[in-house]
């Protein structure tokens, strides 16, 4: 029996962190692990507008345009979506020095790997993410449970301070 609460961070924790960071836009191709967060953000009371895109490239580019206009965006995608958007990450985050705050769900992670090292996942989809980020020289923080909640803001601030991409890796379904 999986004790989900042990590995999940509630959506409300994300929303509160977003507000403290001044995040006013989400750009996204929605992620299965982040459904609770996507649903929470639909509530207009939070004042955070979601822009749904048809590809992760667009989510990254729209976030960069928002940055150019002086707004603060988080890019919510899943691991395979991040893989699909690498050229936009390269162009805008790395070559152009645009701060990009990624929240990347570890889609496909087997429950047997929860609480263990994602690098030991039997799924290539999961275990290739961190080595890829290392290759791209993108700093990242794991979110493996409630004790890691402060990593949401750490990753956000890192993206701003380094003027480039930084990522939060969501290891399990966000809690409702």
């Amino acid at each position, binding site marked *: 029996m999986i004790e989900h609460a042990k590995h999940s961070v509630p959506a409300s924790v994300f929303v509160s962190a977003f507000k403290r960071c001044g995040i006013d836009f989400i*750009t996204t191709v929605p992620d299965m692990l982040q459904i609770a967060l996507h649903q929470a953000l639909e509530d207009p009371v939070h004042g955070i507008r979601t*822009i749904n895109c048809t590809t992760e490239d667009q989510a990254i580019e729209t976030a960069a345009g928002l940055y150019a206009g*002086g707004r603060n965006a988080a890019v919510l995608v899943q691991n395979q979506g991040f893989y699909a958007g690498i050229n936009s990450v390269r162009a805008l985050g790395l070559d152009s020095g645009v701060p990009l705050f990624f929240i990347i769900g570890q889609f496909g992670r087997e429950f047997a790997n929860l609480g263990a090292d994602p690098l030991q996942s039997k799924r290539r989809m999961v275990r290739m993410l961190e080595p890829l980020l290392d290759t791209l020289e993108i700093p990242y923080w794991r979110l493996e449970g409630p004790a890691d909640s402060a990593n949401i803001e750490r990753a956000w601030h890192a993206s701003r301070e380094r003027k480039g991409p930084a990522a939060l890796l969501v290891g399990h379904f966000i809690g409702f």
Partner: protein
Amino acid sequence: MMMTLDVCKVLADVREDAVVVCTMGAMNAFDKLPANPLTVACVPLMGGAASIGLGLALARTERKVFVVDGDASLLMELGGLVAVAQAAPANFFHFLVNNGIQFAGLGNLATPGHANVDFPALARAAGYRACYQFKTIEEFQAAIATILAGAAPAFIELVVGYDQPALGVANPAVEMTDARFTRMGDEIREIRAQLGVVEVFP
């Protein structure tokens, strides 16, 4: 036949305080016109202009955003038409400079579907609020003020010609400059400065 430079001259004349996101041939044309600090070239990032423009339009609703796209570039992220229409920025003007080829003036390779894709119909079906097509600079000049005063997001296809290819036996290669890889970031930072964005981490 009108050329990309003709189109960009018209846009430069009417832009006022609009932010311009240009790419591909339009970038080369704007580079031949007087510099404007509210212009950003989407390069090298084929396909990204419309979405960068979308973000700018959502961030700065008080001013117009012109996206000056290319046909092959738009095709690369065609779903972006839907994302723009869904977000529905009323200050977003999407100009498509359609010459039907890629590497215009360099290699002149046919764009997929160049002979039969109906771009305004695609934009209309996606949900753009106004769609136009122009084949002469005179018609475009006569209509631009009305377009900019009308409904948006708007999509304006401009059918243009192209120069002969420069690459060949006598000129077999061109080198990319370093600036080609750094200008987009520099121009984004300049736009932020022009818009008065306060840098938290200068």
